[in-house]
């Protein structure tokens, strides 16, 4: 229902709107175009047959050819009011156009709408969440990567000594020089290394530092000298990971030394 017009529900209506001039019930002489199974028919109603409801609507099949059908409408509705003739032709045009469109669309791929079942969808979603929790993806990936490392699929790229942190440093000094050439071209390592240094190396290095504090100072002093030499030739291998660690240790060691000094002074005094 638009603001000014009602829609007519009668199936024989010509325009679709409810007017005095386009109501099939209000006019005793009326004509419509209707289509059935892709063929268009012209329906006509005249006064003479008003008493016979069964024979009221006369049906004429229109040809498939558009122009011929228009001529047929004209000859059947000759001497009929202009309004009905005009509207019939308009309706016929529109019907043929939409029939053409239907035929064209069925040739193209049609999107098939498959209805989702809500219960099933909810169930699947829930199961997926549970499966995600059960999967423990990060752990699984880390495990797999470590396994591959153990099985030597990476070859000689990573050299991890099996023993403790101290010996790792001593070995690295020998290795860093050989690795520096290979890995200097690697830009990626610097990018990701920033990430690693900032977040995790702190923790791991602090843990190791507790163990180191118990070791003798002499070793540390030696390592300091060695570290200074190595830092000049820092490569982009694993040594930068130890970089902040070394710096930190050096810093702490300095503190130790300061503490011991005043005590000796007091003793002397």
């Amino acid at each position, binding site marked *: 229902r638009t603001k000014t017009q009602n829609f007519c529900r009668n199936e024989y209506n010509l325009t679709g709107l409810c007017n005095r001039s386009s109501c099939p019930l209000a006019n005793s002489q009326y004509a419509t175009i209707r289509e059935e199974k892709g063929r268009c028919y012209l329906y006509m109603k005249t006064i003479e047959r008003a008493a016979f409801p069964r024979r009221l609507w006369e049906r004429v099949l229109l040809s498939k050819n558009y122009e011929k059908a228009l001529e047929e409408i004209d000859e059947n509705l000759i001497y009929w009011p202009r309004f009905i003739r005009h509207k019939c032709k308009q309706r016929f045009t529109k019907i043929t156009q939409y029939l053409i469109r239907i035929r064209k669309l069925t040739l193209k791929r049609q999107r098939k709408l498959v209805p989702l079942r809500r219960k099933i969808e909810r169930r699947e979603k829930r199961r997926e969440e549970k499966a*995600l929790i*059960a*999967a423990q*993806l990060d752990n699984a990936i880390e495990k797999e990567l470590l396994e591959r490392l153990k099985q030597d699929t990476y070859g000689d790229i*990573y050299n*991890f000594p099996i023993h403790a942190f101290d010996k790792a440093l001593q070995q690295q000094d020998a290795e860093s020089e050989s690795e520096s050439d290979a890995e200097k071209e690697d830009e990626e390592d610097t*990018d*990701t290394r920033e990430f690693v240094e900032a977040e995790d190396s702190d923790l*791991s290095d602090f843990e190791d530092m507790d163990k180191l504090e118990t070791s003798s100072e002499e070793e540390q002093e030696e390592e300091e000298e060695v570290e200074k030499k190595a830092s000049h030739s820092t490569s982009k291998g694993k040594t930068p990971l130890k970089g902040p660690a070394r710096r930190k240790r050096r810093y702490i060691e300095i503190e130790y030394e300061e503490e011991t000094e005043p005590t000796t002074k007091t003793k002397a005094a």
Partner: protein
Amino acid sequence: GDGSGPVGAVAEDGGPLVPERVLFPPTFSVSEIKNKQRRHFMFLRWKQQQRKEKLAAKKKRRKEREALGDEAPPKAIPKTIENQRVYDETTVDPNDEEVAFDEATDEFAPYFNRQTVPKILITTSDRPRGRTVRFCEQLSTVIPNSHVYYRRGLALKRIIPQCIARDFTDLIVINEDRKIPNGLVLSHLPDGPTAHFRMSSVRLRKEIKRTGKEPTEHVPEVILNNFTTRLGHSVGRMFASLFPHDPQFIGRQVATFHNQRDYIFFRFHRYIFKSEKKVGIQELGPRFTLKLRSLQKGTFDSKFGEYEWIHKRREMDTSRRKFHL
């Protein structure tokens, strides 16, 4: 969980006075009280008591275990769905010769023998919306040697021969519904199997927290977890054939397809070995989960294709412990 108790306190006391050890007459059950408020209150009390008893029992058991020391019986393994999984007869035995023979002669053999280099075409259904387009782009950065082409109303049956002519080895079609991608069709081109998945929980790169920089052009490694049955094996090989066979370890990128309870989770990470026992991973790249809907023998053909496996809900979803991949 009934015990004995002060009979009078139960009937009248709907309020806050709660004795320390709540006791009930032996034939009493919480569900018999008609008053909802009181019944609720009783039920909560009963629950609290159950929890206390459970805690006490646990402590006792732990003390006993410690007391026994070495002689204690081994800890009970909790039942998980993976433990209870119904044994699937098509589970692949690592030493199975028949399977090995099959794999040597199936459609992926040329890939695994390093004769072909994968070249992937990624496309969508009609009129992709922004999210799908971005997802396609990100996916193409993850998979090396892949190209994204827009589908402008082209029939799949017609583009397949063209793809084969241009030497593409795989075709990925991402189906979209209401502006989000929800389906994936993966088809191995020279006459290979076609797998149709339902895709869910797609996260683009900016929606993943703490993601790093973009994936580089290096060939990533591939991890395929938990593909145990024959079907799982073939699907796993399909995934493996998307990536070139020789990963570049310098790139330190890894793409993971993890199968858990028939859901395949895809993740893309960058890893770094911090020590021999520790590795750090950082997630880049999109993530999504797939659920296999059907597997067809030939290339994509919905009407006349020969289906190797279809998910039939009524038959296959009857048991919660039965999985097919």
